[in-house]
């Protein structure tokens, strides 16, 4: 059993199956008839199809211009839908992008699975809220929920010095993709045994397409090397790299670029194809001076 988080009221929901109560056949039929009558009478209500596999994503939500702290945003790519859960919203909000529809639904039909994903169960009563528009800077969409203006948009770039945990918190994609990468055990073991103080400063951009693929692999290696003498620091840069002071000071012209310091002195850099196997690149740099 899991508690649905983010709401003042908590509801107990089974992990894999919809909530069911032992109802008699007559009661069941009456409830269905009532639902049918309600929906026929109110064209803004409809019974939605189930949508499975919503995954947590790193987006932010504002309501009347104010950020909703603690809002949970989930995306089901296959269905082209987003789901927003927040205690500041009267009900979960379902955005079906392909249909251009914004709807609210009953919380009882939102099921949290043990793997962190979320399902919208069959028969959820969807209350239409209207359509949506892409916002002016193309980073998200604006819509109305219960007469209030809401916005779902990409988070601003993560800037400055960060730890791996900070990246995972910024966007769960980093954690999911990192988990999918398995660093080579022998190389990791070799790296764990080396006795010099090594710091790998990874300059990256949350806006950079290549970084989205490569940084999770580096995070996976950082996770495996936790507790060793090799530490990682992730430095987020803005889209105009050249304008950033730290990037200028370090001579960073492309991301992701890793600057490897051994006992406080720069030993070399890793970039481009060097990140194909990050643990190998670090090891090569420490052993041969080249990634």
């Amino acid at each position, binding site marked *: 059993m899991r508690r649905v988080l983010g709401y003042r009221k908590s509801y107990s929901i089974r992990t894999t199956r919809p909530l069911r109560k032992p109802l008699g056949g007559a009661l069941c039929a009456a409830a269905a008839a009532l639902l049918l009558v309600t929906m026929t009478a109110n064209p803004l209500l409809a019974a939605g199809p189930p949508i499975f596999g919503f995954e947590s994503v790193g987006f932010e939500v504002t309501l009347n211009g104010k950020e909703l702290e603690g809002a949970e945003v989930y995306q089901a*790519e*296959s*269905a*082209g*839908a987003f789901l927003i859960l927040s205690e500041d919203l009267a009900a979960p909000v379902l955005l079906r*992008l*392909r249909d251009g529809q914004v709807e609210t639904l009953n919380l009882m039909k939102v099921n949290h699975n043990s793997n962190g994903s979320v399902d919208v169960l069959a028969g959820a009563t969807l209350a239409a809220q209207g359509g949506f528009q*892409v916002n002016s*800077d*193309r*980073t*998200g*969409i604006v819509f109305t929920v219960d007469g209030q203006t809401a916005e779902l948009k*990409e988070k601003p770039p993560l800037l400055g010095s960060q730890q791996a945990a900070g990246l995972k918190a910024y966007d769960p994609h980093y954690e999911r993709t990192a988990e999918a*990468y398995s660093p080579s055990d022998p190389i990791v073991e070799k790296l764990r045994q080396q006795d010099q103080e090594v710091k790998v400063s990874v300059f990256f951009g949350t*806006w*950079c*397409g*290549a970084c989205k*693929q*490569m940084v999770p*692999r580096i995070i996976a290696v950082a996770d495996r090397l936790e507790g060793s003498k090799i530490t990682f620091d992730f430095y987020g840069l803005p*889209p105009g790299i050249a304008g950033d002071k730290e990037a200028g000071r370090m001579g960073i*012209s*492309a991301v992701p*670029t890793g600057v490897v310091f051994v006992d406080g002195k720069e030993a070399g*850099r890793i*970039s*481009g*194809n*060097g*990140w*194909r196997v990050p643990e190998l690149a670090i090891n090569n740099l420490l052993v041969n001076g080249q*990634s």
Partner: protein
Amino acid sequence: MTTEPFDSSPSQPWIRVLGIAAAVFLGLVFLVAAWGKALDPVSFVEQIRAERLDFFGLAEATAFMALGLEIALGLALVTGLRRWWVLAPTAALVTFFLFLTGRAYWRFEHGLIDETEACNCFGNLLNRTPKEAFWQDLWLLVVPLGLSLVGRGREGAFPKRRLMLIGGLTAAALVFAWKAPDLPLDDLATRLKPGVGVSEICAGSEENPEQLCLDTLVSDFGAGKHWVVLSDLDEPTFLEAVPQLNEWSTSQSEIGLWILTAASAEAVSTFRWTQAPAFAVQEAPYAMLRSLHRRLPRSFLVEDGEVTRTVSDLPLTEF
């Protein structure tokens, strides 16, 4: 007007042979370069614009005139014509090419452009850094040009027939270039063809530590089957097909579907919000994708890290 031969001494026939061989070689270099550009004239027109050589805003006309000149001079040199009215414009053209590659090299050395912005003088057939382009052109063009001036004999009668042949072939080549975008020549005209490994599709040269290849960018391509569509995300045919691509992508999980794009971050974001793709949209450097297509969309199938099939449009019929 006639020109005095550099050396017409019958005692040194090898000098004449050397001169002819050099002219033929230079002509072949021109023709190979023209072939590369004729296969993908749209890209050549873009290059003319990028180099700001589109006089009076007529980039297409400028491109076709330049192409015609290169072909005509190439044919003239290959057929052994070494008259002053061939060699003078040849020297001018070589000087112009060297100016372009030299300027790009200077800009690269001064950090004004990156290494992927070299002269695309051979179309998509060669990927060269600004430094490589300059030094290769210097050796491939200047040396044979200099040698083609030696051992020229007395100029005889006006070569009317040869000129007619050259004119005819040049006209035919220009018609070919005009029609080339509609001809099924993508595999020939680009670096993307069956048999190419994803590790060979790169942005940047091997010497560049920042070189990025497709196998690093998308490690998933190393195993399994993946259809990859190259797109700017705004082609009408692509946008119309998005629902079909979504449906195919969600209906099976054996074959991956990826869109590789060099579109701006804003365009990618707009696409995601308006189309809600069920497939992966991966941003890639323009330098990586530039030599993989003549027009968009273009698609290819990757199996275990190797390109096994290419499609000049969307792979809808393959689904």
